[in-house]
């Protein structure tokens, strides 16, 4: 096993010109896959830029000391922020991930390039339609567009076009897996990273089915041709809205495994555990969308408890498993490569200056400690009473989908630039601090936001001084302080986001090509030239047991700290709940 990076590529079925061989990893890359990844990544970055500028505008408005935009513009720009970030940035990036995890990792061709490009065009056209309605004030409905708030029909039409494109890409992903199997482009089972992407793709199909089920009727409703019940809309919309978050989680976890492999030669501790955890996501996630409807009048307590608890907690279990296996794989990979000092030696000696590694590490911590704990707590039927629609909610999901998913996506970009675009990473020094700025800024931002929310500060709200409202609402001065801290953290994160865009755009369009041969002097992350996976021992190694902590003691300690934080936060919220009015 001289090259542990990939399964041995077998004889190509297509002509040799259609492929290039990656000099770094030995992977055979289909040129069409290359181009599709590039196109999707570029559009994702444009969406991130639009979303990022709107983030700053929204942030500076919620910060009452500045209060930048007027009310109409605030809600409009907030709509633009939600759509561009959560839908366009994330999904275009995920399309790139799907091509990477299928065609590239399996040495396979994209079976139907024409369909793939059609899908891309559909998605871009749909996105542009939506942008047009939002920017011209025809869709001031926020990204949830709860019926009967009404947007221009082109808004719903655009979403439908976009979704059709995304469905096509998912189907191409499945087709690629089939072709790779039939043409024997790899041996054994699909790699775990591909398995994770497969999970994301399956959930994507479930999600997009909900999307069709709700946006098509809503499109006709907007034309005045049929009725849509507001509560049914919320139910099915969240079948889309929440499940799509699970696509993000599955894609993010797959990227954690990928970045672990690329940066420190992380290993899969146990394929069975990791894959079972992915399957749990598929089985249980659609029901979890019920946690958006916990204080809704449409559903009874039994429905709420069953869907959020038993079903959702099996998905929570899956996340807790990945939260163990990812650091454990890193620890084990490092130990196998000789970093065996003490309990945390592997963590101290990890490549913290590699933006791929720091992104992964921060993403795991932010997603787990902030996003995960708050999410499960707020998603509890009764605790939701003191969380629903307050700033606690955006505080929670900026930790999951921004500090978690977006940061992981940023980290992998630093490897995509050399491995796919064949470019050096421009402003490498800036790239090295970027994950810290973004991750730490986001941590401060979302913690402050969550904390302000515990005082009942509503989300999506232009003016919490209630200057022109009929009654005064005297928020405690602590709220002003929290909002100030939130603004500071948000601006630091925005700076991190801006650096990311600068680095990626510059590298791709004006960057230096990778030199031939020795890459160690090029400005690329170290994992590109010192492929850590190649340094893994090929024979059985005796692993040291640290008493009850076993062979991965550092990870054991970390997950126990996590558990304590979880238990404390969870029960503190029950306590908080018990102080409010009796209601039932």
């Amino acid at each position, binding site marked *: *096993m001289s090259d*542990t*990076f*990939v399964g041995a590529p077998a004889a190509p079925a297509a002509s040799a010109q259609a492929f290039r061989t990656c000099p770094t990893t030995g992977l055979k890359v289909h040129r069409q896959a290359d181009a599709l990844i590039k196109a999707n990544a570029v559009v994702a970055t444009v969406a991130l830029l639009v979303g990022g500028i709107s983030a700053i505008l929204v942030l500076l408005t919620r910060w009452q000391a500045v209060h930048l935009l007027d*009310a*109409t513009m605030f*809600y409009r720009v907030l709509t633009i922020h939600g759509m561009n970030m959560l839908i366009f940035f994330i999904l275009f990036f995920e399309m790139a991930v799907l091509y990477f995890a299928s065609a590239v990792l399996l040495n396979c061709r994209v079976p139907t390039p024409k369909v793939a490009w059609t899908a891309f065009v559909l998605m871009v056209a749909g996105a542009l339609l939506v942008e047009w309605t939002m920017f011209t004030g025809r869709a*001031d409905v926020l990204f949830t567009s709860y019926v*009967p*708030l009404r947007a221009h029909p082109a808004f719903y039409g655009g979403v439908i076009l976009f979704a059709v494109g995304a469905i096509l890409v998912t189907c191409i992903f499945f087709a690629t897996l089939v072709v790779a199997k039939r043409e024997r482009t790899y041996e054994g089972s699909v*790699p*775990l990273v591909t398995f*994770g992407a497969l999970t994301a793709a399956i959930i994507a199909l479930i999600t997009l089915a909900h999307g069709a089920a709700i946006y098509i009727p809503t499109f006709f409703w907007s034309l005045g041709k049929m009725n849509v019940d*507001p*509560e049914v809309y*919320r139910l099915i919309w969240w079948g889309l809205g929440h499940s799509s978050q699970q696509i993000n989680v599955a894609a993010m976890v797959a990227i954690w*495994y*990928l970045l672990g492999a690329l940066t420190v030669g992380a290993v*899969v*501790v*146990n394929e069975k555990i990791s*894959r079972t955890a992915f399957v749990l996501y598929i089985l249980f996630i659609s029901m979890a969308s019920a946690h958006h409807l916990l204080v*809704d*009048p449409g*559903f*009874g*307590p039994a429905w709420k*408890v069953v869907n959020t*608890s*038993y079903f959702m907690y099996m998905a929570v279990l899956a996340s*807790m498993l990945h939260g163990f*296996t990812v650091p*454990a794989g890193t620890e*084990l*990979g490092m130990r*196998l490569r000789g970093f065996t000092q003490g309990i945390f030696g592997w963590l101290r000696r990890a490549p913290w200056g590699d933006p791929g590694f720091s992104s992964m590490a921060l993403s795991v911590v932010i997603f787990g400690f902030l996003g995960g704990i708050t999410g499960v707590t707020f998603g*509890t*039927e*009764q605790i939701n009473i*003191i969380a629903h*629609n*307050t700033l606690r909610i955006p505080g929670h999901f900026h930790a999951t989908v921004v500090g978690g998913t977006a940061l992981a996506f940023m980290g992998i970009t630093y490897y995509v630039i050399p491995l796919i675009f064949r470019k050096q990473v421009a402003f490498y020094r800036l790239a090295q601090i970027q994950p810290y700025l973004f991750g730490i800024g986001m941590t401060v931002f979302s913690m402050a936001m969550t904390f302000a929310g515990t*005082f*009942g500060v*509503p989300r*999506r709200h232009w*003016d919490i001084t209630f200057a022109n409202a*009929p*009654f005064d*609402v005297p*928020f*405690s001065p602590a709220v002003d302080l929290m909002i100030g801290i939130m603004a500071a953290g948000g601006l630091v994160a925005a700076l991190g986001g801006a650096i990311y865009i600068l680095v990626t755009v510059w590298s791709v369009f004006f960057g230096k090509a990778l030199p031939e041969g020795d890459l160690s002097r090029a400005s690329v992350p170290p994992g590109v030239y010192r492929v850590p*996976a190649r340094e893994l021992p090929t024979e059985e190694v005796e692993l040291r047991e640290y008493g009850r902590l*076993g062979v991965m003691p550092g990870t054991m300690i970390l997950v126990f700290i996590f558990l304590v934080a979880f*238990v404390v936060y969870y029960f503190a919220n029950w306590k908080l709940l*018990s102080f409010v*009015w*009796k*209601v*039932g």
Partner: protein
Amino acid sequence: MYAPGTTPPQGVWWKPAHRSEKIWFTIAFVWCMILFAMMPFWHLRGGQNPSGTRSTVEPTAFAERVQEFIDTYQVGEDNGIPLVEPPPGSDIYLQARMWSWTPVLRLRAGAEYTLHLSSLDVNHGFNLFPFNVNFQVVPGYDYALRVTPTEAGEFQIVCNEFCGVGHHLMVGKVIVVPADAPAAEGGDR
């Protein structure tokens, strides 16, 4: 032999887990069961549940009920909004529409009421300040919740679901008087 997640595993990968993985799996599973058990437990023992009685109602029908409620129990006006003091134990109504809450309620600490929430137009959000009690208010649905104010004071109702450009103007009010306060005689001070 261990391999990274980018490598296709060879042969059978269904192998026994490490001891530490088993320990964590067990703990995580037990914790998830505790998370599950807390919800039914709180239904039995806790004072705060979002259950209520739920029914559908036409917005016009709901508006009529609210008007009837106001006509029966109105004791004054607050800021141009009817002020209503219903007797303890009664059904009370709160109507959300762009962008106001009607009426202003005067309640008694420690007494139980059945609060009916609904909207005449789009989704709104009920947020009781400063307790941070939140419910979704959906047009076409009557959410009837039994509520018991715990202490006297003036409380605000903030709309916390985006409901159009006047969303931030939508503030209502609940006044809670001590349990032994005399009942109001018509007009408000």
